[in-house]
């Protein structure tokens, strides 16, 4: 991408970036401009968008390995999310607090993530070509299985279980008092009453993105990419496609676990039972909006996509609600988020930066 003025370069930039993303970006900007006009606080909005960006970014990042290795969009991200839920609930059960609690959650989630990822990866290797729909239903049924588990596993921390019987986890568990906003508030910059810059959160996201970038440049990382973009060349070079795919699935599941823990510390609640399901599609939408294709994705896709998707999802309801003076946020959210996913699905799979 060049920033010099000559028209040719602007044209190439637009082509590279893609008209659709430019349109969404302009729409988002116009919402920001419109916001103060209709009575929505701009500083609160920007703070909101940054928060949501940080919350979701790692979940979107989790999709990159599998796309690169040719295993498609990870609709089975729910498995990684469940691993993360196990980690965070265990962290609360063990009364781990502050940074120990947060990193402890990640640590506790890791063995589960690796385990789930391993079996899930093996399954996907057997069904090359139909991964997406199968992943969806494997994810759904696993979440249902976990619903049963959440009811019968022997947790007993009183903040987590139902009051009456003392058995079975609640649907929503607060992390307040444990590690609420531990990342967000780390080195946070607060300006005025409504604006908080979640420094820690964004630093952590940057760290993960950096690690992913480094990984993709390593020998394993490049082998993974080769399997996804040029399988014949990879096979000729002696790279085992199955092994690379398996590694990508495990990494993806692990990042899914990390992602949901990051989300929880920012959002403030651990959401169990059927909550993992609706978290997957927004992540997929974000990366597609960011310009990724079914078999090529990079960090820029993640950042741009998450920002655009979450930005739109935050701004549209608040601005429209102010204009129309009714609370239509749910309906708007449904239309906007699914509309964006649809839009991304119907684009030609061209590789764009």
């Amino acid at each position: 991408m060049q920033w010099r003025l000559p028209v040719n370069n602007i044209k190439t930039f637009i082509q590279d970036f893609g008209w659709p993303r430019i349109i969404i970006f302009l729409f988002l900007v116009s919402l920001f401009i419109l916001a103060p006009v209709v009575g929505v606080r701009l500083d609160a909005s920007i703070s909101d968008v940054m928060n949501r960006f940080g919350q979701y970014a790692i979940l979107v990042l989790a999709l990159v390995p599998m796309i690169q290795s040719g295993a498609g969009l990870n609709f089975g991200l729910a498995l990684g999310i469940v691993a993360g839920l196990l980690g965070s609930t265990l962290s609360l059960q063990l009364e781990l607090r502050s940074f120990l609690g947060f990193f402890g959650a990640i640590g506790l989630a890791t063995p589960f993530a690796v385990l789930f990822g391993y079996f899930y990866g093996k399954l996907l290797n057997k069904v090359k070509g139909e991964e997406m729909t199968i992943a969806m239903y494997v994810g759904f049924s696993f979440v249902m299985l976990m619903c049963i588990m959440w009811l019968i596993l022997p947790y007993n921390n009183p903040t987590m279980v139902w009051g009456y019987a003392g058995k079975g986890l609640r649907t929503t568990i607060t992390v307040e008092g444990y590690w609420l906003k531990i990342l967000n508030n780390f080195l946070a910059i607060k300006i005025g009453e409504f604006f908080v810059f979640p420094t820690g959160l964004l630093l952590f996201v940057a760290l993960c993105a950096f690690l992913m970038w480094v990984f993709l440049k390593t020998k394993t990382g490049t082998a993974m990419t080769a399997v996804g973009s040029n399988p014949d060349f990879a096979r000729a070079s002696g790279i085992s496609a199955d092994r690379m795919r398996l590694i990508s699935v495990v990494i993806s599941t692990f990042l899914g676990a990390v992602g949901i823990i990051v989300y929880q510390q920012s959002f403030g609640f651990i959401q169990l039972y059927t909550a993992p399901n609706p978290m997957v599609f927004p992540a997929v939408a974000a990366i597609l909006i960011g310009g990724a294709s079914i078999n090529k994705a990079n960090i820029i896709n993640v950042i741009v996509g998450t920002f655009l998707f979450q930005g739109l999802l935050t701004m549209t309801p608040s601005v429209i609600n102010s204009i129309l003076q009714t609370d239509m946020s749910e309906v708007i959210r449904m239309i906007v988020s699914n509309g964006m996913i649809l839009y991304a699905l119907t684009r030609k799979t061209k590789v764009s930066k």
Partner: protein
Amino acid sequence: MSAKTNVTKFLSEYAVVIIFVVLTLASIAPSGLSIPYIIQEVITRLGRNSFLVIALLLPIYAGMGLNFAMTLGAMAGQIGLIFAVDWGVAGWQGLVFALLVGLPIAVLLGWVTGSVMNKAKGREMVTGYILAFFINGIYQFFVLYLMGSLIPMRNPAIVLSRGYGVRNTLNLESVRQSLDTLFMLRIGPFAIPVVTFIVIFLLCLFIVWFRKTKLGQDMRAVGQDMAVAGAAGIDVERTRIVAIIISTVLACGGQIIFLQNMGNLATYNAHDQTGFFAVAALLVGGASVTHANIPNVFIGVILLHAMFIVSPLAGQKLFGSAMIGEYFRQFIGYGVIALSLVLYAWKSRRAAEDQRSQLRQGSATGGAK
């Protein structure tokens, strides 16, 4: 082929059916339900759901996979029913009225679906799935905000007290069971809604006849190989859209039949599970993403719903909690779809690999894909 391979082949062919039969039979005793009750329930559900499942056949035929966007047709049918209740049209006339009102909506939505799917070739199933949620958002907007305000409703009783938007439960008492009771045959302890089954039978005849028409043959060609069909002069894009339009219209009718049997309409979520149940039934009946026929429909509906009738109560008694029983039922439901898809994908990969290894060994194969 050794006997062991034969057994494994048989098991993998019919794994899903076997699992369902075993689970259902095992759950009958703990559920505490009597056999006549179960049989009657299955008869009722056959009448109620079969039409919706048949709506899935043509898109599979045309190579577009499982039409999760059939939910759009269901929404069209629901809007039709809302108007039928609003205008006070009762009985079977109400149902036909609802169908007529929903028809143009279903055709329009089907056309949208087909066009969108044409832009996402190879990803039709996921696209249809998301499209259903997207249009659901528009449906909610339409029914919750526009109806009663921009779109005048005659009957104030079905409007929310704030003045616009439809109430979230609509009593369909005016059309309740009007198709079923047109001629209810009673044999022993069982009641069979004859007219409903006649309608379903006519639909099956339609499907069989349609397959023989030129359009039907075109769809089959498109389903087998889009490039070859295109080269043969078939308008691939249009054929695919027509397949989806028919599917959506059938879903519209199917949902009306479904709701008249249920007797009330959960305005905002009645259609949520429509796609899932229809797809699950079809897959359980032995269909795959590329092949489905009419026996799959009925076998699937019987198996799926028989299990769904007995397992919640069985789960409740076995696990001691209704919630666990309910989760277990859903787990099995989704798991079975996943299993069917996995088995199907595994089978087709095995077939492709077998072919490749045979070619490599230099043996003379027929070459047909």
